[in-house]
């Protein structure tokens, strides 16, 4: 059965904004009251707060019975297409893989959920052991020497790398003010170093999609503090010269940071150590199967060589070899301090640990190999669709993802990639184009991961094939989509870009509009 023939229609509840469902006096939940004895002894404590610091009246929150709150949010849930519900190969670079529910069972137990971060170490030996052991696993996977799990996502890990680079060169009393990255690296590889005061130099790829060593040679100098590079890049092309890159930067005295946010195609296949990197990070919410949670919480596990270990954020987890006892170790000579509250996103850490333990060393390799097989299979299917192309690296296989181009289809039909994106929603799928800028014209980035079966990949390809045919036969149909999704098309983007028109909260909306987007008369 092909996806396009299923008669799919996503839930369309026309669910009001929650404030439209309020009914004064209803209660969603009651709160424990202080005991009579306590009330008698302390009285109304709020009156001890000076008047100007007390709330006048109550906050304007919805008033809804419990069942209606549940119903409202379940409807919104149904109007959200989680990975579990679709063939989620359309969000390239995001590694939308299977998130095993057994791992949710671990993180929702009281044994994890109800731990306070400052409990006595003797009462948290289990969670400390999990963090410690995950550190050991990550060292194996990367070849690096020490990991911190403090960053709350990949971009946060890039920021942490930049902070360590700065601390490292300040310690060495070397003044280096540039960080080099590539155009196909994640946008945060450019944005986060800037925040740490670096001038960011972006090396473009050549017409084959490879960054040439000679291009890098032109920009690396005694001013170079570090190279931050994603590999494989967003195109799914592995940079075969990566070791020469790191050698070049090291020869100039710089450091090398490996963006392995998405390492799904190379687990157990190739590592940061052998490629010559001083630092690297993995996104536990991508490669290591922690769910994405609508956009976090994630986790950026950051690893470094022995030389850089003293600069990591504190604390790390140590194990006493004699007693076998785990403890929080704040004793790092050059630590950059903290980048996040406490010890990182514990649920993501526990899930990643459990996921690795379910696979083992051989299973991790199997993950990577199947992810790459699936991607090349999908690439093969995509090449048979009219109007789409896979630019760069002609004839080469790709690793875990491919950035395709609908340039020909757009030229032939006028249907552009954003049109296709909306139309995919009509078939119950996701579709993501590209990071910006769009070096590849009319892009779409597909990453099938190891989680989907051959028949599911066939289905996804058949959906795109169907839409491409529609584009050639009836372009207006694609341009007017979606039809079977949660809402109809939002045609006017000025409501998002014009400060006079945007409304970021319901009260903001009520201030600007009377009835359905009818502006309040300001005269």
């Amino acid at each position, binding site marked *: 059965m092909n996806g396009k023939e299923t008669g799919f229609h996503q839930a369309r509840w026309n669910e009001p*904004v*929650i*404030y439209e469902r309020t009914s004064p006096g209803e*209660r969603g*939940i009651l709160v424990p009251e202080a005991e009579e004895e*306590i009330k008698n002894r*302390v009285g109304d*404590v709020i009156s001890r*707060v*000076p008047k100007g*610091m007390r*709330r*006048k009246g109550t906050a304007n*929150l*919805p008033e809804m019975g*419990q069942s209606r709150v549940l119903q409202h*949010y379940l409807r919104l*849930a*149904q*109007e*959200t297409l*989680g*990975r579990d*519900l679709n063939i989620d190969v359309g*969000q390239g670079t*995001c590694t939308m893989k299977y998130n095993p529910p057994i791992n*949710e069972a671990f993180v929702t137990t009281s044994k994890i*959920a109800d731990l*306070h971060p400052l409990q*006595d170490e003797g009462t948290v*030996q*289990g969670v400390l052991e*999990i963090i410690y052991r995950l550190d050991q696993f990550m060292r194996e996977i990367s070849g690096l020497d020490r990991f911190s799990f403090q960053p709350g*996502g990949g971009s946060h890990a890039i920021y942490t790398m930049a902070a360590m680079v700065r601390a490292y060169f300040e310690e060495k009393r070397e003044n280096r003010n540039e960080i080099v990255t590539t155009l196909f690296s994640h946008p*945060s590889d*450019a944005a*986060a170093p800037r925040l740490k*005061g670096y001038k960011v130099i972006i090396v473009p790829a050549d017409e084959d999609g490879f960054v040439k060593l000679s291009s890098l040679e032109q920009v690396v100098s005694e001013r170079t503090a570090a190279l931050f590079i994603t590999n494989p890049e967003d195109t799914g092309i592995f940079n075969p010269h990566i070791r020469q890159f790191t050698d070049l930067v090291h020869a100039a005295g710089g450091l090398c940071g490996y963006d392995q946010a998405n390492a799904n195609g190379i687990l157990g296949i190739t590592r940061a150590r052998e490629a010559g990197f001083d630092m690297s990070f993995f996104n536990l919410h991508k490669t290591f199967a922690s769910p994405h949670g609508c*956009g976090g919480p994630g986790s950026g596990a950051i690893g470094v060589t022995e030389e850089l270990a003293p600069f990591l954020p504190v604390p790390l987890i140590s194990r006493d070899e004699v007693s076998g006892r785990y403890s929080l170790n704040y004793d790092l000579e050059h630590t950059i*301090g903290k980048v*996040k*509250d*406490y010890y*990182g*996103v514990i649920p993501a850490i526990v899930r990643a640990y*459990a996921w690795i*333990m*379910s696979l083992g060393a051989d*299973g991790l390799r*199997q993950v990577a190999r*199947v992810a790459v097989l699936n991607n090349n299979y999908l690439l093969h299917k995509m090449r048979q669709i009219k109007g789409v192309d896979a630019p760069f690296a002609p004839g080469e*296989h790709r690793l875990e993802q491919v950035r395709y181009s609908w340039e020909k289809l757009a030229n032939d039909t006028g249907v552009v990639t954003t049109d296709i994106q*909306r139309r995919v929603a009509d078939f119950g799928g996701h*579709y993501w184009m590209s990071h910006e800028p769009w070096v590849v014209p009319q892009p779409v980035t597909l990453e099938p991961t190891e989680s989907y079966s*051959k028949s*599911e990949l066939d289905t996804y390809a058949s959906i795109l094939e169907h839409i491409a045919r529609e584009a050639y036969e009836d372009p207006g149909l694609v341009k007017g989509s979606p039809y079977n999704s949660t809402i109809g*098309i939002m045609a*006017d*983007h000025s409501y*998002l870009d014009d400060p006079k028109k945007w409304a970021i909260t319901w009260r903001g909306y009520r201030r600007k509009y009377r009835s359905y987007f009818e502006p309040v008369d300001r005269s």
Partner: protein
Amino acid sequence: MDKDKVVHPYIPNSVPRVQKEMLAEIGAKSIDELYELIPDDLLFKGKLNIPDGYQDEYSLRRHMNELMDKNTPTSEKLSFLGGGCSPHYVPAICDVINSRSEFLTAYAGEPYEDHGRFQALFEFASMLGELVDMDVVSVPTYDGSQAAASALRMACRITGRKTVIIPRSLNPDRASIIRNYCYPQIEVLTIDYDVRSGLIDMEDLKNKMSGRVAGIYLENPSFFGIVETSAKKIADLAHENGALCVVGVDPISLGVLAPPPQYGADIVCGELQSLGIHMNYGGARGGFIASADEERIVSQYPTRLFGIVPTVDKAWGFGDVAWERTSFARREDSKEYVGTMAALWGITAGVYLALMGPQGMADVGRTIMQRSAYAAMELGKIEGVTSPALKAPFFQEFIVNLDDDAGKTACDMNELLLDRGIYGGIDLSRIFPELGESLMLSVTEVHTEQDIDRLVRSVRQIVEGR
């Protein structure tokens, strides 16, 4: 046995027959061939030193249970630990919603197929906006500390200045995160606090305030739990100098405490954990930033902002406001950076606020204030114990000082309480030595009179050497 041939439940195409079919279609002889771009000397030839997997789920569960059994959570004991991460009651529906597959496993879908995600986060912002009395609220950032750090960077961009002020009474970890985030472009000055009250030292603030200062950051309640009663004066002083006033809040206090704009805050930020999120060893956090709807401020947010949009069929649509601000659009020219942060906790906090409603938030604030006041008062009746040690109104957290008559250090006290099955308070003696042998305790709506009486009894017994 060749482990590559094992069929794993998470990997459908680990079936050898299927792999053969796929390779044949691609026209490749083996999966190895697909890796041809990786130079031979970069191929890892060894075997990772990682244990063999527990491939059956039951064995995995046994293994994980053994590890987790080494934890003794607060739910199995009596705990008064707080300091920015506190036990509050989590309504069942919060957990039901955030564990739904649709929300748990969605990511970055479009405003159509992920309409519900956009609406839930818009509503989160709308409800939090009412709580803090602001028209703009961000999609969640990593945590409250990150929100404070970003809010201060925003203040710098808005004013074009490069100095910020934070109080020394701040959680030292939060101070470290802020310093780290501001470095190297922004100078972070620290103002002292009055040891008797815990309040910001106004004289010190006046000395450090100048036309170079972009913003002052203060918290209500502060790390010590006290209400910064001079907040209005502090905000006025900031404004007189052309600086912004940035206020960090614990949102669960805002049913009873004033929303910060009422005393002059320009930017409000805070941590969401108290709104329906389990503590998770400090690993379930979300931060927010809020402000008035002014373009000069909105254009400086680093985070995503969701706005409401009309659709052709007159439904509510949602999308990203001012996308061009973000690092997704602008890379190195953006405002800070944005990425995967903490959206699920924003949705959860929204569910919490919808359940609580106006009365629930007022009630929970009152219960916390009454119970914590009771605990502080009763502890203060013990010989050698000064409680509350700071002379200022407080919310939820308070400091207990042990003098020589108590004959115990804060560290001793915690150990002896632990022997009695109680996780005591945060030992401040090392991080704030000027406060002496002090513990900071957190009492919330989950602590009953009985729980508090047990704590008081235990402390009394310990002080009396029993």
